[in-house]
């Protein structure tokens, strides 16, 4: 009953998925902390949530969702050998990611001016502490994604050998999007408005 290793899975995609599994656990620990804080004092959590800029957050969510679709288009294009198109799409995705980061920085700036960094009010304190850590960690991952996707955009124009890398980079980008898909409602939509 010998197994033919010719049908063994290919290492690189398996490697990327295993890496993403580790990232799921890392953000998962953070989400656990958020869930516990929310559970312990729902009123304080909702109060904190109401102080966030809902429309900026919503716009950012839309930006990321669109960017994922654009990356999916890029992967499709690479598979069909349309490298120039893929390079453009990867570039657009990187720009969208950058736009997200700019909006996020703007939000943080506004919040600082509104006295929401280490706010005096104790009930707001922990919501904002966790909000900054969570969005900061996500922004760090998104920054890596922007650099990765932009680099892939440059490389794929010249060299078809990078087709596999584009698929792997796409997986990472989608993962960062999925993290935000859950962060957004937990942070921005906790309170009914």
């Amino acid at each position, binding site marked *: 009953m010998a197994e033919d290793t010719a049908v*063994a899975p290919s290492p690189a995609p398996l490697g990327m998925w295993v890496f993403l599994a580790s990232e799921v656990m890392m953000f998962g620990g953070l989400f656990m902390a958020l869930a516990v804080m929310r559970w312990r004092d729902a009123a304080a959590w909702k109060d904190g949530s109401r102080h966030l800029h809902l429309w900026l957050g919503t716009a950012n969510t839309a930006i990321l969702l669109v960017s994922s679709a654009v990356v999916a288009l890029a992967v499709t294009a690479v598979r069909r050998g349309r490298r120039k198109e893929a390079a453009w799409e990867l570039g657009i995705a990187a720009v969208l990611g950058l736009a997200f980061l700019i909006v996020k920085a703007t939000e943080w700036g506004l919040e600082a001016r509104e006295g929401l960094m280490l706010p005096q009010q*104790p009930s707001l304190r922990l919501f904002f502490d966790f909000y900054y850590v969570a969005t900061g960690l996500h922004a760090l991952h998104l920054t890596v994604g922007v650099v990765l996707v932009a680099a892939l955009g440059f490389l794929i124009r010249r060299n078809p050998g990078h087709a596999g890398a584009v698929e792997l980079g796409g997986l990472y980008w989608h993962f960062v999007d999925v993290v935000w898909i859950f962060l957004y409602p937990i942070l921005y939509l906790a309170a009914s408005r």
Partner: protein
Amino acid sequence: MNTYLQAGYGLRSWLLTTDHKRIALLYLVSITFFFFIGGGAATLIRLNLVVPDSGLISADSYNRAFTIHSVVMVWFFLIPSIPAVFGNFLLPLMIGARDLAFPRLNLLSWYLFMAGGTVALWGLIIGGVDTGWTFYTPFSTTYSNSHVVTVLTGVVIAGFSSILTGLNLVVTTHTLRAPGMVWMRLPLFVWAIYATALILILATPILAVTLILVAADRIGGLGLFDPRFGGDPLLFQHLFWFYSHPAVYIMVLPAMGVINELVTCFSRRRIFGYRFVAAATLGIASIGFLVWGHHMFVAGMSVYASFVFSILTFVVAVPSGVKVYNWTATLYKGRVQFKAPMLFGLGFIGLFVMGGVTGLFLASLAFDVHVTDTYFVVAHFHFIMVGGTVSAYMGALHFWWPKMTGRMYPERWGQASAVLIFAGFLLTFLPQYLLGWLGMPRRYWHYPPEFQVWNVLSSAGASVLALGYLLPLAYLLWSAFFGPPAPDNPWGAKGLEWTIPSPPPKENFVEIPHVDEPAYNYGEEDSHG
């Protein structure tokens, strides 16, 4: 014949290598260095405790000593030890591959490990940290006046090294097995490394994010776990132990993997119940994620949750028991040879069982509330980590030394060290069970005079143990340069690694083998001949 040791000379050929065998040796040198640093801290501790109120080092320094002992031993010795040295060296050989799936990532893992170790050591040099390796909040976040962030950063960086190594080992096992090397023909050491790698991938990221929270809290004065703002110190503990309990299985599963190899080779028998041992390996890895609350029985956790964690902790002992029965059954009527690796292996079985049953004591709520945070716990985990894992590590080192270096170590010295270590270990740690039972708390720099006799015995044992560990450092190093050349298969063992030269060529196999034998294919004539 060009071996992997001769494929390039000079520092660059080592520091830029992607050969899994050379990377294994890089890890071997690094972790040996860290072992002796952690051992130095242990020496300070045991010296201080010879007298009830010695004041050999200040109370504050004592806290820093036991913290650095545990931080270094856990993260910079035990966790990498067998996976990063023997997993790296042996996995490709045992499955019939030329290297790991991602050789350059493997080198990055080592550099991350060294970077983390350097940062953590830097934290030690500039004054150390006094929180214990457990970094409980709010002491670590708010009140400690020590270099918490520096040491945490070192640990987190080393954690990324662990995750990438785990990733490499898992992907390699799935994708690079030689034709015919189906899962059920793999050496059980591979099953153990695989299960360990799964834990590395799933648990370590939780540690990373938890320590990042502590660092952010300390830097920003956030108060994340501060009850004054509604924070919960137990949130830290849940997150910390969710990693740190599986971490002990990272430390013990590879050791158990080694024992499979030793017990079969040195009794010339197939393993009893291969499928059960493989299943038990995965069982320990999975169930090990369900028991972390047993570290928090007196922390303020719900008593109902404590019930659940207690029951699950009893359950996790079952697969470990299965393995011990299977090793014993393998030894039964075998043709046992008491070579040094086997002595270490037998030492593992005895000491692991003793440590394991005391784990069951600790799993019972009623008993735990009396001995938690006493020397009983300290003895329990040292029986597993040192009596168990370090013995298995020494066994592995002696068993595969000829393969890795192409030299034989002096056998009598090896046997003597094994006996010395076993005796020294018992003298050091058996008294600690008594101390805990009698009520001596852990992490205290001084103690009531009635505990002195047991402390003296323990410290005396520690000096024997130290000698036991220094001896192999000397004779193994000697043998690397002056030992007699080793044959391909000095032990007459089964396994693909023994079918290639000692040391192996860089590409491992001239031709990728086709496997059609079961693991441990020792026949009747081997065990009764």
